[in-house]
């Protein structure tokens, strides 16, 4: 293998490049990025960057003086992949020929029809999105957030601290019920209500209210209720950025690039990692997209190992994410199913300070914690232990 093309210049792409070099690949590496920027970190976009406590240079993901010997092709997206010739074509007409390809194109936010035509209706995925949103987050304004997932809730928290009137609407009765279960959703609800966020659960959004372009006036809910807004954030989830792969023969579906348990796509020599990918998960016996920062960072080494022909891929740790809301740190690891039992191990959820496990037939399969970093790490190690992993699978 002489040349590797990495498509997507963000966390998964950069982690893949680092892994390539660490695993001894000395050949040419071309990094294709649709955005004009070198890799930057997204989590602060809904937190400290949005609050104005961090600026652009703080977001860079590259270490000072880090030189991986890369060829950067930034500012023009890949538009097609020809796997037989192993060629990636770019929007500017140029092409990159490579022996191996790493797909790391991440995900794109879902939108409401017509939302692009409004200046005050936002999504939040890129630095550009964050700058546009930040500029409009002025004290006293009314923000309606559509979607109570991590990004929606974090923006709600940041916006409240900036003195903004915030309403969050979501089809689920309580925020994050699907991810964390009803009990923890109740804690999240309490945290937000206590800090003055108006949460409207069980609400279906019909569309935006407004003249069709310029400034939207609000959000229309199913059933007639209309929420006036000075600005709107659509945080309704993401879809993998894989449209450009249609027709390439690489197997994709709505979950992303379908890969085996070590990141290899349906085409040998093409691996995928990060938010654009759905790896086969033995426990679920299905493909599963892990849209979190840590998965993009850790799994890159596994995918690269597959690409370079390493026969024993390192095991991946159980999924993990964190979230910062109202100055509190929420952490989750493992896998939770709807019928797992929540057992509080430490603290009290009502005090917004606790650690709880999700148990399946008594066995811990997931851990959620608020402000319990120390014990959380211990539990994370317990969950990552091979014995537990195996028992869960059995």
């Amino acid at each position, binding site marked *: 293998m002489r040349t590797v093309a990495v498509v997507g210049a963000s966390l998964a792409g950069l982690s893949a490049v680092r892994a390539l070099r660490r695993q001894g690949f000395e050949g040419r590496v071309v990094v294709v990025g649709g955005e004009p920027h070198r890799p930057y*970190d997204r989590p602060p976009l809904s937190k400290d960057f949005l609050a104005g*406590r*961090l600026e652009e240079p703080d977001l860079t993901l590259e270490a000072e003086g880090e030189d991986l010997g890369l060829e950067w092709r930034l500012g023009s997206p890949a538009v097609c992949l020809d796997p037989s010739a192993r060629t990636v074509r770019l929007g500017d007409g140029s092409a990159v020929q490579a022996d191996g390809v790493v797909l790391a194109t991440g995900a794109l936010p879902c939108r409401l029809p017509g939302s692009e035509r409004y200046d005050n209706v936002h999504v939040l995925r890129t630095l550009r999105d964050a700058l546009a949103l930040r500029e409009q987050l002025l004290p006293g304004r009314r923000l309606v957030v559509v979607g109570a997932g991590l990004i929606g809730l974090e923006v709600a928290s940041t916006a409240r601290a900036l003195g903004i009137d915030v309403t969050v609407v979501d089809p689920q009765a309580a925020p994050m019920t699907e991810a964390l279960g009803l009990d923890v959703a109740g804690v999240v609800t309490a945290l937000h209500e*206590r800090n003055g966020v108006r949460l409207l659960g069980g609400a279906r959004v019909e569309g935006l209210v407004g003249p069709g372009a310029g400034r939207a006036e609000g959000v229309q809910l199913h059933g007639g209720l209309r929420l006036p807004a000075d600005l709107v954030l659509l945080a309704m989830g993401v879809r993998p950025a894989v449209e450009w792969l249609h027709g390439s023969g690489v197997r994709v579906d709505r979950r992303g690039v379908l890969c085996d348990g070590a990141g290899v796509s349906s085409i040998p020599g093409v691996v995928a990692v990060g938010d654009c990918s759905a790896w086969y998960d033995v426990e679920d016996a299905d493909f599963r997209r892990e849209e979190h920062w840590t998965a993009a960072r850790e799994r890159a080494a596994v995918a690269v190992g597959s690409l370079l022909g390493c026969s024993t891929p390192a095991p991946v740790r159980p999924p993990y994410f964190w979230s910062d809301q109202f100055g509190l740190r929420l952490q989750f690891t493992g896998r939770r199913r709807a019928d797992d039992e929540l057992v509080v191990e430490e603290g009290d959820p*009502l*005090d917004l300070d606790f650690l709880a496990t999700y148990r399946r037939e008594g066995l811990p399969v997931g851990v959620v914690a608020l402000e319990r970093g*120390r014990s959380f790490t211990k539990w994370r190690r317990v969950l990552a232990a091979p014995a537990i992993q195996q028992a869960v699978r059995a």
Partner: protein
Amino acid sequence: MRVCALSELAPGEGRRVELDPPVAVFHTDDGDVYAIDDTCTHQDASLADGWLEGCEVECPLHASRFDLRTGAVDAPPAKKPVRTHEVSVEGDDVYITLSEAAPNLPPGVGAPTGGSAPSTQGLA
């Protein structure tokens, strides 16, 4: 300065010592004892809460790894090393000599963060 008893610090564990800035003392599985600044250089996380493996501790939040011997960080998001402090063990007592270098504290730590303080009191 004495920071703790070795017998209170099981191998594989770390402990935070409340100094300003706080220090983390680790006892590795191989029986060595190290001391570094406790606060991650990326954000406000306690490295004593981190995942200790060999001579490295992984930050509990975003997984940057710090070498306990040198303070060096493997890869971002943390970009700056932590300070290391000299350790000596005499009998069961662990002593450290604080580094005289300036600490690499993350932005916002030790300084007011601005914005109205959110209410995080209990709900009961």
